[in-house]
C-alpha cells in the first residue's frame, strides 16, 4: 500500500542495506577494472583505498604535516567564515525586506537577479574583486548563499500571520520587540531549513575556488591527487566531504527538533 509505515528497525536495516549494495557495486566495478588492468589506480581496490587513507592521516615526510588535518582546518575555517557572513547578511536583508516595504521594493529585484548568478561561473570576478586569499573564499561563499537565503527569509517573514502581529501590537509591543520576539522566532526553523539547503552549494563554491587558487584545502588536494591519478586519496576525501555534509544536515535538523518542537511536531 502506498505510504504504509514501516517500523524503525526495518527502516534502519533497509538504509544499511542500501549502503552495502553501493559498496558491493563499487567492489564489483573495481574488480572488473583490475581484471582488465591489475595495475589500475583509477578505481582502487579496498586495499588500495586503505593505503590512500594511511597516506592522508600519516605525517607527510616532505611537509611534516598530516594532509587531513591541514586541509580540514583550511577548508572548514573558510566554509564556516563564509557561511557566517552569508547567513548574517541574509538575516538582516531578509528581515528588512520582509518587514519594511521600501526595503522590499529596493532589494527584491537585485536579490532575485543575483540569486541566479552561479558563483562558480563568476570565479574570475571574485579573484579580481577580492584577491586570492581567505577574503576571496569568504566573499565567494557569502555572496553565493546570501541572495537565495535572503529570499527564503524574506518569504518566511511574509508568512508570519497578520493576526499574530496585530495581537503583539495590541499588547503594546514596540517595533523592535515585534521583530525580535515574534518574527525572528517564527522564522528561525525555516531559516535553519534554508541554511541546511545552502551548505551543499557553499561547499561546491569553496571546492571550485580551492581547486584553482588553493595551496591547501580539500579542493586543492582533490585536484592535485586526481591529476596524479591517486584516486585512492581522492575517494576518501570525497567520503569525508559527504560525511561532513551529512553530519551538518543531521546537526541542524536535531537543533530544529530540539528548539522548535512546535514547528517539527508531526513532521518526520
Amino acid at each position, binding site marked *: 500500500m502506498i505510504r504504509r509505515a514501516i517500523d524503525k528497525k526495518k527502516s534502519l536495516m533497509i538504509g544499511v542495506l542500501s549502503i552495502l549494495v553501493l559498496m558491493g557495486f563499487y567492489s564489483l566495478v573495481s574488480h572488473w577494472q583490475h581484471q582488465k588492468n591489475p595495475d589500475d*589506480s583509477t578505481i582502487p581496490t579496498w586495499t588500495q583505498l586503505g593505503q590512500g587513507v594511511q597516506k592522508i592521516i600519516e605525517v607527510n615526510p*616532505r611537509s611534516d604535516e598530516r594532509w587531513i588535518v591541514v586541509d580540514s582546518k583550511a577548508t572548514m575555517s573558510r566554509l564556516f567564515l563564509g557561511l557566517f557572513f552569508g547567513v548574517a547578511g541574509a538575516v538582516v536583508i531578509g528581515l528588512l525586506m520582509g518587514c519594511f516595504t521600501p526595503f522590499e521594493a529596493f532589494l527584491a529585484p537585485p536579490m532575485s537577479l543575483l540569486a541566479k548568478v552561479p558563483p562558480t561561473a563568476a570565479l574570475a570576478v571574485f579573484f579580481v574583486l577580492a*584577491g*586570492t586569499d581567505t577574503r576571496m573564499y569568504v566573499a565567494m561563499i557569502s555572496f553565493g548563499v546570501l541572495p537565495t537565503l535572503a529570499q527564503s527569509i524574506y518569504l518566511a517573514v511574509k508568512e508570519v500571520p497578520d493576526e499574530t502581529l496585530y495581537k503583539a501590537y495590541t499588547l503594546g509591543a514596540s517595533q523592535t520587540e515585534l521583530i525580535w520576539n515574534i518574527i525572528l522566532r517564527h522564522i528561525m526553523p525555516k531559516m535553519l531549513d534554508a541554511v541546511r539547503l545552502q551548505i551543499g552549494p557553499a561547499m561546491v563554491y569553496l571546492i571550485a575556488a580551492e581547486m584553482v587558487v588553493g595551496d591547501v584545502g580539500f579542493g586543492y588536494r582533490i*585536484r592535485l591527487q586526481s*591529476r596524479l*591519478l591517486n584516486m585512492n586519496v581522492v575517494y576518501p576525501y570525497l567520503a569525508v566531504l559527504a560525511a561532513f555534509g551529512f553530519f551538518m544536515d543531521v546537526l541542524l535538523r536535531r537543533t530544529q527538533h530540539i528548539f522548535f518542537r512546535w514547528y517539527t511536531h508531526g513532521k518526520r
Partner: protein
Amino acid sequence: MTRISLFRFFVFAALVLILPARTVVCEETKTPSFSLAWSEYPSWSTFGVADEVKLIDGEKGKMGPIEKKWNVDIVLKEADYDSCLVMYGASQCDAVCITNMDVLNPCLSRPSMAILPTSTSHGADACLVTEDITDVKQLKMMKVYGLAKTVSEYCFVRNLEILGEKEKDYRFTNMDPSAAALAMQQKKDGFDAIVVWNPYVLETLTKRKDVKVLFDSTSIPGEIIDMVAMSKASLDMPGGQAFACAIIDTFYALVRRMDDPKTADDTLVALGEKFSNLSLASMKEVVKQTQFYKQPDQGITVLTSQNTQDTMKKVVSFCVAHDIVSQPPTLSYGNAEPQKPVMLSFNPMFIEKVKNTP
C-alpha cells in the same frame, strides 16, 4: 501491475539492453575507431585545427582523407589538460597529448608508448618577476606562485639548480597559472613572482611593463617535451598501429600548412583561437617559444637520442623526489625490442613508417 503489463515491461527492458549491444556489434564490424584526448596548447591544437580544415573528422563514425588513407577512425576528445590526464589514466581514451613529465604517472598503471614528440618549451615556461627583483636570491623572502607538481615547478627547481641555489630555501606555492597571472596583472600584494606558461607569460608581459622574465625554459633546452602517448594495449588492438600512424600523419600535414605561406597565418590564428586572445604577431612569438618538432627526423631524434635519455633521468628523479610518482617507471628508447616489459617506451617506429609512406 497486471501480468500483461509486467510482460510488456520486461520486453521493453530487454530491448533497451539488447539494442545498444547490437549497435556495438555493428560498429565493431566497421573501421576500427580510436580516441585521442587533447587540450588547447599550440602543438596539440594541431589536431583540433586538422579537424576544422577537414584533414580528419574527429566525430565517431566520420572519416577525413587521412583517416581513409590509414583506414582508421580518429575520435577527438577535447578537454582541459587535467581532465585529459585522468581520462587517459582511466582508460577512457587510447592516446593523449601530454608532457614527458606527466606521462610518468599514468604509465605506471597503463604501459604506454611515446609515439610523437610535438614540441618543446623554449621560453614558454617562465618565472616572471617585478622589476625590483634583480637576483634570484631575492625570491627567498617571498612566495613564488605556480601550479605545483607540473612543468612549472620543474622549470623553477631546475633553474634554481643551475643557479646554484637550494630548493628548500624557496617557497613555491600552488596556484592555477590563470589565477596567478591575473593576480600579477592586477598588481595584487604579494604577487611579485610567478612561474607560468604561455599564453600567461606573454599576456602578463604585455599588460605589465614593469614585469620581466627572471629565467625561463630556454636554460633547460629540450627538457620539457610535449608529445602524444598511446597505450600499448590499444596499439596491440587491430587498427591500433594504423591509428598511431594516422595521428602522426595528421600532425605533420598540419605543420606543412603552417609552413606554407598561403595557409601559414590562417593556421596560426586557428591554433591560437581558443588558446588565447593574442594577436597574430604574438602567436608567432608563441610558436617560437614552443618550438615544434616539424620534421619527422627531428621527432625520431628526440625519441632515440642520448640527450632525451639524460633528460628523462632528471625528470624521473624530480618526480620521485616530489611525490609525483610512487616509483620510477621503467623506460626504453629506440626501435629495439626491450628485454623486459617497460612502462614507457620512446619508439620512433611509427614516425619512420609515416615518413616512408607516400
